[in-house]
């Protein structure tokens, strides 16, 4: 279960923005999709979840753990949150081989030195993701799809309790996108931990969403059961447009719309 109440404002930025969201995601669905236009606060929410950005106030609870509580002055740093993060551009370390990348969470100050046990473990993860033969390659020598799998392998090798995927397909061309969506869906389905996925592609929503969070101008609305709702519409685009219109009709902000 994820319970989120976040407030964060950037008043002095070139484009003033404030994030003000409050929702709770139950355990009935393993995957949660954050959907909305760019600049609506999806990535910022994810960075707060991961501990990379400190909110101004609110709370973040994951399962039984309090990761952040503004009033009690609790802030668990990113290092100790056990949350896996797959960045939009995958953020593989360009100076390390694939194996060193995947083993990074288990190595010391010097990431080039991987002990045999870690090496074996990282190799096994790479094999599971079908890129074991690329262990000694640098990220720059990999294709987009291979990089994505490597980034996922690296995040999972750290043993996270929650996986965050920030626009997993935005770095890929449209043809590859379709194929990789299937692939990623399969990989995520095989995991025991929940995943939160950011996207602004209705196709992704259809593929991944259990619960759906609609983002707009720093506000968020929870759609507890997207799959149920989706049955009444011909395409994901129609369904999402209907949801957005419904929210707009209820007036913005309209957390109560659903």
């Amino acid at each position, binding site marked *: 279960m994820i319970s989120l109440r976040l407030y964060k404002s950037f008043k002095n930025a070139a484009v003033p923005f404030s994030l003000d969201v409050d929702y709770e995601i139950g355990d009935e669905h393993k995957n949660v999709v954050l959907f909305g236009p760019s600049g609506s606060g999806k990535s910022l929410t994810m960075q707060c979840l991961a501990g990379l950005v400190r909110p101004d106030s609110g709370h973040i609870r994951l399962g039984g753990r309090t990761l952040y509580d503004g009033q009690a002055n609790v802030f668990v740093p990113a290092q100790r949150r056990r949350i896996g993060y797959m960045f939009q551009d995958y953020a593989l370390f360009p100076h390390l081989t694939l194996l060193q990348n995947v083993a990074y*969470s288990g190595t010391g100050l*010097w990431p080039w030195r991987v002990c045999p046990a870690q090496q074996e473990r990282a190799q096994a993860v790479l094999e599971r993701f079908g890129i074991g033969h690329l262990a000694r390659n640098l990220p720059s020598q990999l294709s987009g799809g291979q990089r994505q799998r490597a980034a996922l392998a*690296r995040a999972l090798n750290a043993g996270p309790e929650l996986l965050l995927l920030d626009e997993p397909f935005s770095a890929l061309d449209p043809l590859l996108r379709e194929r990789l969506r299937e692939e990623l869906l399969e990989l995520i389905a095989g995991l025991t931990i929940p995943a939160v996925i950011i996207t602004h592609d209705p196709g992704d929503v259809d593929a991944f969403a259990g619960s759906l969070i609609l983002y707009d101008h720093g506000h968020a609305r929870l759609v507890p059961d997207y799959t149920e709702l989706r049955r009444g519409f011909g395409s994901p685009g129609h369904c999402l447009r209907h949801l957005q219109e419904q929210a707009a009709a209820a007036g913005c902000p309209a957390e109560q719309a659903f």
Partner: protein
Amino acid sequence: MDLDGISIWSPLELSLRVAGTATLVSFVAATLMAWLLARKKGPMPALLDALCTLPLVLPPTVLGYYLILLVGRRGLLGHWLAEMGINLIFSWKGAVVAATVVVFPLIYKSARAALEQVDSHLENAARTLGASEWRVFVSVSLPLAWKGIFAGLMLAFARGMGEFGATLMIAGNIPGKTQTLALAIYDAFQAGNDVQATWLVIVTSLACVSMLMAAELLLKLKRRRR
């Protein structure tokens, strides 16, 4: 004419030793400072940044004067240093202190720029993988900023070789002890010993050119290995 080897070798050796030590000390201090101040905003970091850059714009004689106030026999730290048995004035270590301060901003500036250019996603990725801030710096930021920092080190070494003003103020101009190439050239020229001055100028130029070429070669080799 005095070309018995000592008068050229000794200032060259001293210059290399002073510039090398100063670059090394400054590398550690300036890179750590750049790490602490990189991507920081606010009045305090701005002030520290200005202080770190100051030696670049102040005349070396002013720096020398400050250093004497600080580490001179009657300076702020002078007593303390004397008790520890360290005497910087009129010693080659004093020349190192002078050169360290003079080259500090060159390394600091390039290190800060290089560290700030490292993709912050990569540093964040390391954090989510459990790496402490120090480990993020050593294993991700530093290796990725290395080229920029290395360029700064080369510049610093070259500048250290040519350091004159602050060194003269704090270490003096004692042949065989604190007389670096730059000082020896001035000395020879003043004494009308033009041949000696010419030789020293040639040696200095050759040393600097070969240094810069070696640095370029090193960077190229590293690039090819990747």
